């Protein structure tokens, strides 16, 4: 019993090992399959992603640059026109003429009506910075611009456009000037103020999406147009752009995270002789929203596809491993059967050898006992006081000798069968014969034998004598197993594909589970000593196995036992050698 549990433990350990091995195998397979299928997919995706990204980004910037350039050129054009307008006034009139405020007013009106109402006012400023004549809505006559920074630049240059500033009037504006000469040779300038709001609006019109906006800054990073209160600009980025030298590539772009941690893109274009820079800014997220959408879709597809691949790989591998494991189990069962058969054959041979060696001395012993018996008959035994005892002993020797003979004969037939010539045999006939022979014995045990035979049963290539022995054994066992008055033994035959199936079923006491693995072993018996040799079923097993069939048992203790014999049927027009089914079907209860 202890040994048994050790063996069981060993088997469990082996099973666990095998499971572990399968798990390892499955993991390795999954890894390989996933890697092989996912790697090209990921590589391809990465390549596509980066090249598409680069191309798309380039396109977006190109587009933005084109837009910004167009607007910058338009603004430049606008400034140039304004400058030309003022220039023309200086070229057309002398200082003295311009000092006449009515002319100046007239000119302002003309400019406003001819060009645009951008012009706010006109002023004549002499070389000292005093404004001797002024036309416009503000009271700026005799204003002194001598200290204004723009004046020093304007007086030094032929024409000039200032940055936006608030100046004396206190509202943001910028001025356009042209320099002329008095008759005395002193310089003077005519300045025109450009309506800031109007100009501002021009730049503000450049909008894209919800976050794309444009503004003008000078090289010091000071705004030349204003922003709405909800619009913010990152001054660090602005400073970086303002510091750019635009001589190499005209439009410049920049990508920078603002303090709110949003990545912004900036496109800048210089204008007004590179004094000013038109800057367009937009949240990168919005500018590339199409790209990001495409990316989102691609990544989703990639993820889903990857999941599908991994899932399929897992499922397939699981199935494969299951198949392999099932095949291995089948093989193990088969191997067990082969080993079992070999074991039985070896035991059979051994038994036969022993039986043969014992048989001769046994014969001599029995003969000697007989001889003593003979001699005693010749003696005058009336005087012998133990004569009867001796007689009994001799009788017993003879009886036991006969028992031994029976055993040895059965053992011998287990190894070397009686009439083992095979021929086409109709098993139904054999079943009927055996049922007839056993009926008498069965009746003593209050048992009836019922036949349930398939009339279209094919023949089987087998030795009828041996088959008869098998059936007799099974029926005898069934009768012996009866422990109740209404014993019923059913002998059935039917066809199952290439097999002829015979069943001997009883409703007797059944076989205890513990005995099941051993019932086909030689010398295993549960019958009382002297009643059974324990060879019947092992002989049956040997015969059926040799004939290419299987014998199996199904038993429920207390309810009965069914032995099932499957033999290869002879197909019409074929010989036994060619029609044997290729594999023996495994039944769970096969021993």
């Amino acid at each position: 019993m202890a040994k048994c549990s050790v063996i069981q433990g060993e088997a469990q350990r082996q099973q666990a090992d095998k499971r572990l091995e399968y798990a390892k195998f499955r993991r390795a397979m999954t890894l390989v399959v996933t890697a092989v299928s996912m790697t090209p997919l990921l590589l391809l995706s990465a390549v596509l992603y980066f090249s598409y990204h680069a191309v798309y980004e380039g396109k977006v910037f190109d587009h933005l640059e084109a837009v910004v350039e167009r607007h910058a050129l338009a603004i430049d054009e606008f400034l140039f026109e304004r400058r030309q307008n003022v220039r023309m006034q200086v070229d057309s009139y002398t200082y003295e003429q311009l000092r006449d405020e009515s002319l100046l007013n007239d000119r302002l009106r003309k400019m406003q009506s001819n060009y645009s109402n951008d012009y706010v006012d006109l002023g004549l400023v002499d070389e000292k910075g005093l404004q001797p004549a002024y036309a416009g809505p503000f009271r700026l006559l005799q204003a002194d611009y001598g200290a204004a920074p723009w004046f020093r630049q304007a007086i030094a240059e032929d024409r000039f456009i200032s940055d936006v500033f608030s100046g004396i009037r206190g509202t943001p504006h910028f001025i356009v000037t042209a320099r002329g000469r008095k008759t005395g040779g002193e310089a003077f300038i005519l300045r025109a103020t450009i309506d800031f709001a109007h100009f501002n609006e021009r730049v503000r019109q450049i909008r894209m999406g919800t976050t794309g906006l444009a503004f003008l800054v000078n090289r010091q990073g000071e705004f030349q147009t204003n922003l709405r209160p909800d619009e913010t600009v990152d001054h660090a980025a602005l400073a970086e752009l303002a510091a750019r030298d635009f001589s190499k590539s005209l439009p410049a772009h920049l990508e920078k995270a603002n303090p709110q941690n949003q990545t912004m893109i900036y496109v800048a274009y210089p204008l007004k002789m590179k004094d000013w820079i038109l800057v367009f800014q937009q949240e990168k997220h919005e500018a590339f929203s199409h790209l990001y959408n495409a990316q989102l879709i691609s990544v989703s597809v990639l993820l889903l596809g990857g999941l599908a691949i991994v899932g399929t790989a897992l499922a397939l591998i699981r199935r494969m491993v299951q198949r392999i494991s099932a095949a291995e189990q089948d093989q193990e069962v088969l191997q067990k059967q082969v080993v079992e058969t070999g074991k039985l054959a070896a035991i059979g041979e051994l038994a036969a050898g022993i039986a043969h060696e014992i048989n001769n001395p046994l014969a001599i012993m029995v003969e000697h006992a007989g001889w003593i018996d003979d001699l005693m008959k010749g003696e005058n035994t009336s005087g012998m006081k133990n004569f009867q005892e001796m007689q009994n002993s001799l009788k017993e020797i003879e009886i036991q000798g006969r028992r031994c003979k029976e055993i040895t004969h059965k053992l011998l037939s287990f190894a070397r069968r009686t009439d083992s010539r095979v021929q086409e045999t109709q098993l139904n006939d054999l079943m009927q014969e055996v049922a007839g022979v056993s009926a008498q014995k069965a009746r003593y045990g209050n048992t009836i034998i019922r036949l349930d035979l398939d009339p279209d049963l094919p023949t089987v290539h087998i030795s009828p004598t041996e088959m008869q022995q098998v059936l007799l054994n099974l029926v005898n066992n069934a009768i012996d197993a009866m422990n109740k008055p209404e014993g019923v033994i059913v002998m059935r035959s039917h066809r199952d594909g290439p097999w002829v199936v015979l069943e001997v079923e009883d409703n007797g006491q059944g076989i205890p589970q513990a005995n099941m693995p051993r019932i086909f072993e030689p010398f295993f018996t549960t019958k009382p000593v002297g009643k059974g040799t324990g060879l019947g079923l092992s002989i049956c097993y040997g015969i059926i196995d040799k004939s290419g069939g299987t014998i199996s048992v199904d038993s429920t203790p207390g309810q009965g036992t069914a032995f099932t014999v499957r033999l290869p049927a002879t197909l019409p027009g074929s010989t036994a050698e060619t029609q044997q089914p290729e594999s023996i079907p495994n039944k769970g209860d096969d021993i």
Partner: protein
Amino acid sequence: MTMAKVLLIDDESGFLEVLSKRLETRNLSIVTALSGEAGLKALGKDHALDVVILDVKMPGLDGIQTLQMIKKDFPLVEVIMLTGHATVETAIEGMKLGAFDYLMKPCDIDLLVQKVQEAKEKKAKHEEKIVQAQLKEITSRMA
């Protein structure tokens, strides 16, 4: 007067000895031989032998071979095969080759004696037929 003259061939001397004693007490005259060769010699020497009880398994000439030679050289002698194996095949083969019957060792002595008697009777009848035939021939020649 013995019932029959029997030649017992077996390689086991112990068996031979006790069986011959038992058969002798049953009114049979026994000659023994420990091998097939010795048996054939004995048959050659003693033409009065009626029945041979022959063990199937022996070293040297085995039962079947000995049987064949007996049937060849002494066709009138009846042979009863005694087999240690439950090999009915050998017995059947022996019967086909002309053996009278077979018994399995260890055998019932009375059954054996009965078989010997039957064999002897068969032989006697056979011999009688031969004698009759010879007589017929002689008488027909005389006539």
